[in-house]
């Protein structure tokens, strides 16, 4: 008698096994996509160090109350105007052309009652304890956007690339060796042209 070929293994259960594994992985894993706003907190200061005096025109005060409303330099403001106002404040360059603080790259209106140059300009944000975190992040986002806008403008003018794009590529490790050091140096230069001076004062307890 001719030998019967071995019966085929039924492959129907392979699909079941595969489905089981798939459902296991769907349930126990997540897609990591964390991104956020990076910030450096000021270290704790000793009590006997007197904070340096800042001229009122170099200070941009943003107050947020518990109803998530903004008050900028004593005038109420909508969130969508915050970015443009911050840009105008930072870019003002009010110092006159014969003083050592003159800012040659500022393109602002050079009003004498607004900031002298971006190195002296300080933005101070003060929140109420009951302000929503949502609004807090929105305000931080708009202020960082103002700095990034100015930094991108300068890096485009000086080097032809965007500051934010270069920083992102640096983080992804796209540059190596000498090119990396050079780009790092340029990034630091741009950072010093518009330093991120964002201060968060202690929220007043009512």
């Amino acid at each position, binding site marked *: 008698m001719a030998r019967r070929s071995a019966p085929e293994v039924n*492959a*129907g259960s*392979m*699909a079941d*096994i*595969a*489905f089981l*594994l*798939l459902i296991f*992985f*769907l349930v*126990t*894993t*997540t*897609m*990591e996509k*964390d*991104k*956020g*706003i*990076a*910030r*450096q*907190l*000021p*270290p*704790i200061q000793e009590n006997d160090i007197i904070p340096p005096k800042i001229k009122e025109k170099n200070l941009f005060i943003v107050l*947020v109350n518990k109803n998530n409303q903004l008050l900028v330099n004593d005038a109420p403001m909508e*969130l*969508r105007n915050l970015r443009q106002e911050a840009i105008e404040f930072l870019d003002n360059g009010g110092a006159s052309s014969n003083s050592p603080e003159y800012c040659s790259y500022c393109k602002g209106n050079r009003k004498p009652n607004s900031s002298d140059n971006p190195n002296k300009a300080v933005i101070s944000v003060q*929140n*109420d*304890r*009951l*302000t*929503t*975190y*949502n609004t*807090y*992040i*929105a305000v*931080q*986002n*708009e202020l*960082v*956007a103002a700095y*990034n806008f100015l930094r991108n403008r300068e890096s485009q003018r000086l080097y032809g690339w965007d500051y*934010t794009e270069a*920083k*992102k590529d640096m*983080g*992804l490790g796209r540059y190596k060796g000498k090119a990396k050091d050079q780009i790092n140096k340029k990034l630091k230069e741009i950072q010093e042209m518009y330093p991120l001076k964002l201060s*968060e004062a*202690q*929220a007043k307890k009512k």
Partner: protein
Amino acid sequence: MSKFTKKKGNELPPVSTASLPDIVFMLLFFFMVATVMRETNLLVEQNLPKADQVEKLKKDRSVFIFAGKPSDQYKDKYGDEGRIQIGDKYTEVSNIGIALTEARGKLNPELQSSVVVALKVDDDTNTGLVTDIKEKLRELNMVKIIYITTPGNQLEN
């Protein structure tokens, strides 16, 4: 005569399901490669606020602090107030130091000094709680922080 045998029947041949496991295996491999095993159970609600001026988080040097209202299954036991979670359990503001030092110990020893604290806070929390966390972080000298957000811009709502 064998060349003219009658045709078998008029039914359609059954659809072959031999390739079904292949499709499922492809999906499986995709998930195995693109995802990460979840490390902690989330005990608090997490609707992150939107922001677009963001940087990528460096996972190998970050410790996470979650904050928000307890999620629905824990609400009856732990109430409705904003809570902080580090690791797998709730902590109070005063215990943050111990919990963070413990979490930092799990990182690579070379990276421990450049640790970044990732704050994943629900968008409905009060800023007061976040300010308390930040004050404690300043005392512990962990000054590099990153507020985790979801892509988008709040002005476009």
